[in-house]
């Protein structure tokens, strides 16, 4: 065991995979010599060499497309995109190709790549550095989307993503990169994709969330635990999502709320509400609410906290569901 | 066996075309891929080649008529036993 934050957990996962599988290669801007702008790949080039941890020219489209080609030809590229907003430049190669290679070739070829980026706001970063674009990728057939919330989860899920035979978009919550430090096993382990985590058991209602908001949700829920006993589920994987765990919980508690930082309309919360509607209508006693970002670009630093769901908004949402 | 050759969608979602000129007439014996007719669509003027070898027994429409995708263009009696006689405009170049 070692105490690690989320960034260090990324490094640990990458180290483990680089050791385990010689076909794993890390590519991205400033990942080699510089160890990554968040230091996520710190020390790896020194340890594994310039042929395993590779600095690329400045092209997110190039990085994503090159990763597709490398994955097709037998490697397991883990591409770093410096900020989630730059994934838009990679978009075409991910949507038009990464997710389609297997189908297009009827299984003759596949694309086992990972593309990872820091996501979410709350650190007063510049624009396009804080996007929450999980819904865009969840809506893209052929991709898997993972959004961990803690250092322990980051390490296990990233290892699983790298070992996955399909392309994975791995969004890392920037806000908790250094905010949480916890015990992380030094040995290799995987957390299976597609399995949610009940991080707090409860009886009165179910709160489903992911990423940096898991911490905020737990804090909010703790602060009102005398009044409401909320079960908190960390989805961990957005696509495929663990609908079974969510439905079992909602059937047990009878009330639910979905919390995400991404904009409301067309956000992944809508999908979860639709699933609860289809599978647990008889069990719920109140409409399932969503507490989310608004349909807007993330405000600049000074006003970003007006956008990101605060503990107050989360608590208000919980009460609204309970009071129905 | 009379084969009904229907006007196909020759251009990604066209619905109709206008007959420009017929390259064959009823009674002609045609080879496979021999040009039957010139049709103008929104996108282009296209030549339609015959899918079968045989005798043209019926031609539908004359120059200037509009024909819808799915309408029968020509009826061909398949596998004529005589040597195909080249009509004036026949050529498969």
């Amino acid at each position: 065991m070692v105490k690690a934050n989320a960034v260090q957990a990324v490094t640990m996962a990458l180290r483990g995979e680089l050791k385990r599988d010689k076909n794993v290669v890390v590519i991205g801007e400033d990942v080699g010599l510089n160890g990554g702008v968040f230091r996520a790949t710190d020390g790896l080039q020194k340890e594994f060499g310039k042929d395993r941890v590779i600095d690329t020219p400045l092209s997110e489209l190039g990085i994503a497309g090159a990763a597709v080609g490398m994955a097709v030809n037998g490697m397991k590229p883990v591409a770093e995109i410096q900020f989630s907003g730059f994934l838009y430049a990679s978009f075409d190669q991910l949507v038009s190709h990464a997710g389609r290679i297997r189908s297009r070739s009827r299984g003759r070829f596949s694309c086992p790549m990972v593309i990872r980026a820091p996501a979410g706001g709350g650190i007063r970063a510049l624009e396009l550095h804080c996007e929450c674009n999980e819904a865009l990728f969840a809506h893209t057939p052929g991709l898997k989307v993972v959004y961990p919330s803690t250092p322990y989860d980051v390490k296990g899920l990233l290892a699983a993503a790298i070992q996955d035979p399909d392309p994975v978009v791995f969004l890392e919550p920037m806000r908790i990169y250094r905010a949480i430090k916890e015990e992380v096993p030094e040995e290799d382990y995987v957390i299976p994709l597609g399995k949610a985590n009940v991080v707090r058991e409860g009886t009165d209602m179910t709160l489903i969330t992911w990423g940096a908001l898991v911490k905020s949700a737990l804090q909010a829920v703790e602060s009102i635990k005398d009044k409401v006993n909320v079960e908190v589920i960390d989805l961990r994987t957005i696509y495929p999502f663990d609908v079974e765990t969510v439905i079992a919980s909602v059937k047990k508690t009878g009330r639910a709320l979905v919390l995400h930082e991404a904009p409301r309309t067309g956000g992944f919360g809508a999908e979860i509400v639709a699933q609860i509607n289809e599978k647990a209508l008889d069990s719920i006693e109140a409409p399932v609410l969503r507490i989310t970002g608004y349909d807007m670009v993330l405000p600049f630093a000074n006003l970003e906290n007006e956008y990101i769901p605060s503990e107050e908004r989360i608590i208000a949402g919980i009460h609204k569901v309970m009071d129905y | 066996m009379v084969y009904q050759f229907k006007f196909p969608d020759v251009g990604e979602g066209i619905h109709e075309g206008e007959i420009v000129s017929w390259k064959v007439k009823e009674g002609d014996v045609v080879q496979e891929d021999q040009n039957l007719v010139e049709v103008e669509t929104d996108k282009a003027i296209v030549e339609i080649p015959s899918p079968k070898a045989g005798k043209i027994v019926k031609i539908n429409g004359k120059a200037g008529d509009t024909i819808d995708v799915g309408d029968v263009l020509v009826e061909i009696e398949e596998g004529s036993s005589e040597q195909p006689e080249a009509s004036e405009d026949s050529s498969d170049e």
Partner: protein
Amino acid sequence: MVKKVLKTFEVDYLQVLDENGKADDSLMPDVSDDDLKKLYENMVLVRTFDKKAFSMQRQGRLGTYLEVRGQEASQVGSTYAMKDKDWLFPMYRSTGALIARGQPMVRMLQYWGGDERGLISPDEVNNFPICIAVGTQSLHALGAGWASRLTGDKLVSVVYLGDGATSKEDFLSAMNFAGVFNAATVFIVENNQFAISTHRDEQTGSETIAQKAIAFGFEGIQVDGNDALAVYKTTHEAIEKARKGDGPTLIECFTYRMGDHSTSDDAARYRDPKEVEEWSKKDPLDRMEKFLASKNLLDDAYKEKVAADSTASVKKAIDEFENMEPANPEDIFTYMYAEMPTQLKEQFEEYKAGKKNG
């Protein structure tokens, strides 16, 4: 204080076989008589297939089709230089390259007929599926060629592009990465003078496409794209260079798109029929026939046999295609992921239940 010339550049052009079928012996590639005949036979096969496929589209037997007419030498000459497991990254006008490289003609018909099974590569070769988005395959070929350098698998990735694709970001990025990482990638740009209606001169300010490689740190060469021997020679050299680890090459095959852009296009709207007429005098098959005849490798009997054999092969493929069992509709679910994820599995059950009841 200094003002000096840091760099000048030169771009080479190669033609081995001229329009009249006369070859420059000093420039001949190292090919046997059998090689020459094979090149000719493959070009005839491609032309025969292409003509028939176009016809079939007009008859409603095939969906939208894009002819390769005029580009047979660019595609057959270049693929002839590839070794079995080398990677072929095609574009949508690479039917000739794919057929020459062992993709069964029936599969090409399946593809243009709307059936994904058409893109399945035979096991003996690595024929990547066609993707329609222009130029995107250049990054895939870059990635694969880069991987070859890292793993040492001694394979080369050959990617086909049109002149229009050279404006795409993917192409520019791929060329740039290729120069940095010495990727085992050969970029073949078939400059057929048009991107639908956009003439090559309006596509880029560069005088040649070949010279774009220089900006990225490697060699670009322009060849007569209608000369199978020049295409073969240049591609062979580029492939072996890449295989040795000496990096990428850009080959610009200067040729002409004799047909319309696609079966939905009408090139008469934007180009001069006189230009088409001029290019028909540079036909790749005509000159090859003249050359073979001059070497006593072709006479009327052989020519007729090649034509007849091609027609028969194409007919066989068409018969197989038109009598083929349709794909299992459940395939649409099966190939999205290695293992069907939860949501898709649920939808699959729903789909199957719907089929049973509906």
